[in-house]
């Protein structure tokens, strides 16, 4: 199969992004219209079909710097799902906020292209370019609400801290390159498995961990998340929370599952401790939050901790659990953000108290939110529970029984803050009773999300099987 066919999904997504961008330049079309987003959704759907066709293909291109295997394809699909659902509900939000939805759609597609490239990256340069494509897109997406202070602040914060993380990552990569003489992951892996390496290799490895840790909110690189979540526009944050972290997890799996396997003595104990601290900090700091987006930010941090438990398991089941969790978490989180986005005009800055009596104002919206939150809390048989089950199973199988036990007990805390939101929506009296309205794009995203959370929970077999098969391709 030639390289173009391997890259077809990314090409389609990028082309769609370019078409939306250029169409706007040449035709000076109405910048508020929603067509761009629908066009983007269509492009993603097409890319998804071509990506799905790549399952079973196990091929390298561009002199070994790019690989399409089931692991990569799975994460490409996660990116497509996250971008597609975001584009469904984003226009309603953006039009209300006076933001050009064409701009938003095109940048989402560019970010999605980055997220699809990243899992396939087999050398540092490709990996870095894909990562930066994602980051640069998010600088724009987060600050797209011009004239408003909070989104601009969120964008700036992300720009500065993400820039710092990129610098750390690059420094780590340059150290590894200096020691191994190659940017290719395959060559680096062979070099590390050959014999003993100087302390600097461990330092390089840890710097890369720090750089990627920023993207997946691992404590102590998580500080930016709550502020950026709170300030950023809901659709952008939804996409950031799901697509970006999933793609970065793919890179973590490639690097730490395989490339740096020979250095596991350096990073594994640290990652185990970081996983536990991340679960603890995320859950504990979510407790006092009064803003729903900050709450979800801290809960995302806790979820990152759970996923790391599967990463440290370093097994086929662990890899499958990471993939499975990424997709199910993406569906649950985007669904929750779709509700927040639909509710944006009716709340004061996303304060949880503003969700009071939401049930009386929008019963379906509330029901969807309850299901999404219950899934994130791990209530069976919803998607989130199955994902947690897979992660903890991987940890226990790898012998981390005590670590899994502590993480499980810490996860009980999450019931408090998730259920508290459910309580506010169902029990508290609403300050006003005007019904909440939202467009059919949002409605479609809500229905898709709801169906996803319930059906992927009720029928987890095929997806988990797919993830397990794909996990078999971690060796390269």
């Amino acid at each position, binding site marked *: 199969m030639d390289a173009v066919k391997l890259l077809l999904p990314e090409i389609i997504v990028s082309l769609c992004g370019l078409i939306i961008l250029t169409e706007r330049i040449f035709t000076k079309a109405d910048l508020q219209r929603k067509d761009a987003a629908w066009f983007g959704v269509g492009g993603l759907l097409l890319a998804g079909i071509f990506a799905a066709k790549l399952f079973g293909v196990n091929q390298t291109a561009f002199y070994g710097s790019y690989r399409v295997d089931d692991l990569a394809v799975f994460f490409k699909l996660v990116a497509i799902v996250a971008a597609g659902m975001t584009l469904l509900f984003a226009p309603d939000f953006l039009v209300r906020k006076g933001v050009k939805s064409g701009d938003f759609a095109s940048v989402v597609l560019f970010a999605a292209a980055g997220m699809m490239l990243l899992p396939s990256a087999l050398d540092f340069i490709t990996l870095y370019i894909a990562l930066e494509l994602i980051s640069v897109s998010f600088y724009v997406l987060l600050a797209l609400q011009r004239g408003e202070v909070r989104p601009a602040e969120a964008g700036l914060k992300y720009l500065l801290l993400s820039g710092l993380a990129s610098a750390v990552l690059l420094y780590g990569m340059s150290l590894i390159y200096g020691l191994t003489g190659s940017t290719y992951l395959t060559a680096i892996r062979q070099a590390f498995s050959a014999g003993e390496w100087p302390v600097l290799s461990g330092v390089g490895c840890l710097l890369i961990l720090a750089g990627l840790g920023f993207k997946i909110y691992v404590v102590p690189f998580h500080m930016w998340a709550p502020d950026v979540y709170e300030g950023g526009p809901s659709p952008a944050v939804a996409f950031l929370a799901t697509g970006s972290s999933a793609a970065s997890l793919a890179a973590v799996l490639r690097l730490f599952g395989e490339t740096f396997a020979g250095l596991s003595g350096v990073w594994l104990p640290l990652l185990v401790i970081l996983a536990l601290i991340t679960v603890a900090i995320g859950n504990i700091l979510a407790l006092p939050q009064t803003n729903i987006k900050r709450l979800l930010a801290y809960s995302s941090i806790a979820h990152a901790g759970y996923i790391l438990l599967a990463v440290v398991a370093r097994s086929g089941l662990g890899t499958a659990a990471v993939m499975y969790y990424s997709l199910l978490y993406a569906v649950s989180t985007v669904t929750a953000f779709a509700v927040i986005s639909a509710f944006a005009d009716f709340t004061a800055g996303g304060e949880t108290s503003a969700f009071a009596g939401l049930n009386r104002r929008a019963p379906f919206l509330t029901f969807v939110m309850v299901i999404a939150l219950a899934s994130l809390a791990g*209530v069976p048989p919803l998607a989130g529970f199955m994902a947690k089950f897979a992660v*903890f199973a991987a940890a226990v*199988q790898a012998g981390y029984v005590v670590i899994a036990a502590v993480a499980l007990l810490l996860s*009980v805390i999450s*019931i408090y803050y998730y*259920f*508290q939101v459910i309580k506010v929506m169902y029990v508290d009296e609403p300050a006003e009773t005007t019904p909440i309205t939202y467009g059919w794009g949002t409605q479609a995203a809500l229905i898709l999300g709801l169906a996803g959370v319930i059906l992927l929970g009720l029928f*987890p077999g095929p997806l988990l099987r797919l993830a397990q098969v794909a996990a078999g391709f971690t060796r390269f």
Partner: protein
Amino acid sequence: MSFPVVSATVFAPLVGAALIFCLSPARKELIRWIAAVTTGISLVLAAYLVLAYDLSAGGVQFAEKINWLPSFGIKYFVGVDGISAVMLLLTAIVGFTGVFASWGIQDRVKEYYITFLALTFACAGVFASFDIFLLFVFFELAVLPKYILISVWGSTKKEYAAMKLALYLTLGGAITLLGILCLYFVAGINSLDLLELARHEFTRNQQLLLFAIFALGFSVQVPIVPLHSWLPDAHTGAPTAGSMILAGVVMKLGAYGIIRIACWLFPQGALFWAPVIAVLAIVCVVYAAFVAMGQKDLKYMIANSSISHMGYSVLGIAALTVASLAGALFQFFAHGIMAALNFAIAGMTYDRTHTRVIAAMGGLAKVMPVLGIAFAIGCLASVGLPGTASFWAEFSVFVGSFPIFPTLSILAISGIVFTAYYMLRALQRVYFEPLRHKEFAKLKDAVWHDWVVITVIVFFIVAMGVYPSLLMNLITSGLDPIMAGFKGATPVAGLTTWLAALGGVR
């Protein structure tokens, strides 16, 4: 393919909930009747399962098995054995009567019945499951409806009570999930099918550890003192039908899990930990009885009484004899319907008097004779009066436990005296003293839907008191495979011996 009776029994309430979900909230009467019909179907099917169960064949009957999560060997495996059939009947009785006990609810009727039916469905699912993962899914599924039921339609400190319940039960669930994962990998047969796991030989140390994890996880829901503090608040905070199903069914889920999973799969573990469980059981019986005696609130008193009564069941489990285990399971049923009746009457009384303070009522039997008689039956059943189902349950527990834990059994019997004191005193103060407040003179006695609740439950209390062998035979047949693991062995009696055994393990 034959008609899936067990699935129909379990899913009937969920179908009701789905139908109600599609209705306009304004159609309150239709919503109530859909709830009544679907839980009624569940009741009829559960009764059919009890009557159609072939005692001579034994084992799991009416089984339905579908692969669910093949990567982990997890199946949708439901069916009934003697124990499940009885527990399904209990759930169906409480579910059906709970619908009628909720008839007077006017606030958010549609959501109320959806939540209540979802809870009934989850509880029934636990009892019908023969795959541990499926059982756990139903077990955890019950938490969210309980939380919503209490926090929306509850009363005293409802939000606090609901959150406390959710946190405690999730904590228990987390421990249980850890146990399931350990069990899955320790057994290494890529299955969580109870029947397959029961055939697997676990080493002694594996059994000791796994039993401890499962027993700890499930004991939160029993609840065993000191993990009990969520229960009185939850019972008191819950609406009437919520309290009924909490005391009648939810409390049984944990103890059922201990018997169904921990005792069955890890007999060595059960034998080893039995003395500790027996001591905790007596603490439950005596401590909760003392707390109940000091209560001024009628619902708090019944709630603590429930903890005390569950102590008998736990003692029966600890003794691990056929009689004691059969007694414990019969007590699930007997206490389930009796507590449901007591909470129903407490709720009906509260609806009329708007107080639950025992001292504030008095002489209500003069104006509400039907409710007074029903409460009297509930109180006498609590005391374990012959002729009521509870008598056989307690009798069987004591007969089975005495040879194993004589001192503890005698202490447990003292619980009956305490129960008689606080239950009969409450009966006297609430219903049989002179009418204290003139405004109570105009109160209405039982209306038609109250009659349904009272008639159905009293029928079962008396019927099972007069003809206990119907359920007792079923239960005993269900215990056969569990008892096979013990092979005549008796628990390590006495704490000193137990501590010595603990030293041996180390």
